């Protein structure tokens, strides 16, 4: 590359990006770190002790977060059973791209702090560990989606774990409801974790009376192992951040592997993964979609989103 052409081209970099990237001496950077309200983050302590990580090595995985371009869609073609396929696509509103190795260690988590007195214990009194935790009653068979359990005193919170290797060919979308309008996204780092705090408004497609709801997301990404923890809900960001900071995780000893032929997720969740990206709907035909298997979790299948 001709050096002079490159220098002149770089002179035309968008001023907004330059202001955003201006070194710390510039006082008006757009990213801001939230005040540290709790001392030593127990999550980091837990990582060191429970996972035996002696030091945070260079991150093997990387994560990018961007807002989708107007008209940008992502979709999947999935096979429910042999011979029966269907296609679903979503507007790419907030897109998380990942890069890195093809496998991640599987982990379970448990919230060590919740804003109410609920004991998360197994019947034998041992600590309960989760792949997905929700204060919502998701007993779909009774059509009670989003109904609150009395145990949680009206606090909505869902926590899920995902893995960067799952999204190697696609992206993790913030597309639970339609539309998601992001009003603020803040990036910061906690020891060993990259944190995106997102303040959004959403329409709940299943509930006419839930339009324009305020919604908060904390996307926690651990570059070392490619672990993604998503804490989300309608509680205020401070409460969610407190929950997030006191999450504990442990490895199961199993490995989650990337496979272009498989697709496993809980259907109702913040992220729909492994999507074949389409720049603009008109440029590529649906035939370009990857055919993948969708493993529907046990139990009745949730209602199909109306989009």
């Amino acid at each position, binding site marked *: 590359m*001709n050096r002079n*052409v490159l220098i002149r081209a770089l*002179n035309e*970099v*968008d*001023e907004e990006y330059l*202001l*955003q*990237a201006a*070194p710390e001496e510039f006082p008006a950077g757009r990213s801001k770190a939230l005040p540290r309200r709790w001392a030593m983050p127990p999550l980091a302590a837990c990582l060191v002790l429970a996972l035996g990580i002696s030091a945070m090595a260079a991150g093997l995985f990387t994560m990018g977060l961007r807002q989708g371009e107007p008209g940008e869609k992502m979709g999947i073609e999935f096979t429910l059973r042999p011979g029966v396929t269907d296609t679903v696509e979503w507007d790419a509103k907030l897109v998380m791209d990942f890069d890195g190795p093809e496998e991640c260690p599987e982990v379970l988590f448990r919230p060590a702090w919740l804003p109410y007195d609920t004991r998360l214990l197994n019947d034998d009194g041992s600590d309960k560990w989760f792949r997905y935790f929700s204060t919502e009653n998701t007993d779909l068979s009774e059509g009670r989606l989003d109904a609150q359990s009395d145990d949680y005193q009206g606090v909505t919170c869902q926590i899920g774990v995902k893995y960067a290797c799952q999204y190697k060919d696609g992206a993790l979308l913030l597309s639970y409801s339609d539309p998601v309008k992001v009003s603020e996204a803040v990036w910061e780092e906690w020891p060993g974790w990259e944190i995106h705090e997102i303040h959004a408004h959403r329409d709940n497609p299943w509930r006419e009376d839930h339009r324009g709801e305020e919604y908060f997301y904390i996307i926690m990404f651990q570059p070392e192992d490619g672990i993604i923890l998503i804490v989300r809900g309608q509680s205020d960001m401070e409460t969610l951040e407190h929950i997030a900071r006191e999450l504990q995780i442990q490895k199961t000893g199993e490995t989650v592997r990337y496979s272009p032929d498989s697709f496993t997720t809980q259907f109702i969740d913040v992220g729909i993964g492994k999507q074949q990206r389409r720049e603009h709907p008109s440029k590529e035909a649906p035939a370009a979609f990857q055919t993948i298997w969708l493993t529907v979790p046990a139990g009745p299948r949730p209602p199909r989103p109306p989009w």
Partner: protein
Amino acid sequence: MILDLFYERSEQAVDALKEKYGGVLRSVIVGILPDKRDAEECISDVYFAVWNTVPPQRPKALLPFLCRIGRNAALDKARSNFAAKRNGRLLAIDELAEAIPGGDSPESETDARELARLINLFLSRCGERDRILFLRRYWYGQSVETAARSLGISANAACVRLHRLREKLRKTLKKEGYSL
């Protein structure tokens, strides 16, 4: 406010500019000109250039305007005395230029404009953190260590990310039909 001081030809204009943006300007220039004397000389030239160009110019955003002048002046200086190369230090801009294959064909205005458009497209597709890292290294001229420290990651992690970003830029250019 600072621009108004320049328009009034107030002697406080340069002091106000130094106080508000001097640290950033210095980091841009020192990133390109490690020699302290070269850097100080360059910084003085930049303030003088701003004094001479404002007015008549009235930049929309003063910081990018100041840093653009500083960056160009520092690159000119580095190019003229080859000090960085003689010290065996690869300039950030060279690191990026070498990562993107392509002949040393004479520069043209069209090439630069098209490349600028594609670089902005590439940056729009990067995550915020990656965009900041890329620009701190290749626009503000920060060392990998400094850029990494400012983002709270290790230098090794920053190297890996920068390598991937250069590769992503190369792919974007290729995909968009820019002749490499």
